[in-house]
């Protein structure tokens, strides 16, 4: 559920909670997010964002890193990250820490 205009603190330390794991599955054709009784296919952008959600980096640092790695406009990356993390947090698939 996207919530346009949603705000998340840049100093949050997002991380996957216990019971949620990002894993690669050859047989299922790519990356998947495993969660309580649910499995979500993760596209390339989602994977790049979630790999950085270790609980160590702040949301701002994650956005900076992605903008640098993919030489993309920071605002656009910021909007993508906030959208994804906000929607995952609503589904209890992410802790904002």
């Amino acid at each position: 559920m996207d919530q346009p205009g949603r705000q998340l603190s840049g100093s949050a330390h997002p991380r996957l909670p216990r019971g949620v794991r990002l894993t690669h599955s050859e047989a299922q054709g790519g990356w998947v997010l495993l969660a309580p009784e649910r499995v979500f296919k993760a596209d390339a952008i989602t994977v790049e964002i979630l790999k950085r959600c270790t609980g160590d980096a702040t949301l701002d640092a994650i956005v900076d890193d992605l903008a640098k790695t993919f030489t993309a406009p920071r605002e656009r990356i910021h909007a993508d990250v906030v959208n994804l993390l906000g929607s995952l947090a609503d589904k209890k698939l992410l802790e904002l820490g």
Partner: protein
Amino acid sequence: MTSNGGSLPAPLGLLAELTHRCPLGCPYCSNPVTLDRRDDELDASMWGRVFREAAALGVLQVHLSGGEPAARRDLPEIVKAAREAGLYNNLITSAVGLTPQNLAVLTGAGLDHVQISIQDSDEISADHIAGYKGASGRKRAIAREVVKLGLPLTINMVVHRANIARVEPMVELALSLGASRVEIAHVQYYGWALRNRAALMPTREQVEKAVRQVETLRARYHGQIVIDAVVPDYYARFPKPCVGGWGRRSLNVTPAGRVLPCHAAEVIPGLEFWNVREHSLADIWRTSPAFLAFRGTDWMLEPCKSCVRRDQDFGGCRCQAFLLTGDARAADPVCHLSPQHALVERLAAAREDASYSYRSS
């Protein structure tokens, strides 16, 4: 072999029925009316083999279920084997038989998630439904313990006539126990539930009200708890896409090792199920007669065969089609397009305040 693109899909989930033994007697138990015996149960090392073969096939999650899986003393060994196979470990339990001590051992062995069933928010009613005095209090205590150990918790609430008026307090109970997810699961009528259908069946008005309440509660608790609902299909217009399509996404292994496309599949006469004691899981998935019987869409009759929704709901549930019409290839009669749909309406109306026929072990 199939008409759904030709290539064989990889299963995502394995339901491992570790035992049919259970201390509770819920009158809607999804176990078959004839239970596998303790002497016939697969041992932990055999389960380990099944888990490794499942992972190699593409399975990502294992649902350790029963009966009551905690009735097995070697449960920690089984949990560890699933973890070592790389599977996501989901324990589906009544919580009766679990203690804080053995829960901690299981957590250390590699549990990822715990689902606990709670029969009602009203404790007297809950214990009456479970046929076990004190069950409700023990479940609540273990639920809190799961949260204390840092594991994600789902509360599963099976809904029927005796508790359908309490959807709101049931969701609030799950929230107060620290669950991140709650399932509002309307009874599905197979096995023991079919036997108790007249006593369990809610009215259409009750069901519609409960569905509206779930919507309200979802909005109210958005971001706090995820509410998943299993729809009551006797009052639906279209059938459920049972197990995501026969032999398409999941498999079920019984305590004695028979591999089924769904937990109720043995009610369909004439299906040949293979056993993990004699075959590899990959062979069973690919070529066992029971899995081939209704995989894809070639087996379909009208109105399913030419239906625009045939790849969406797969004709509904084969077991229900057989149980209600006598023909496992027929459209699931809960579908309003089924020529036998009137039968479902008649059965739903046949309610009777009889006492439960409890599941016996």
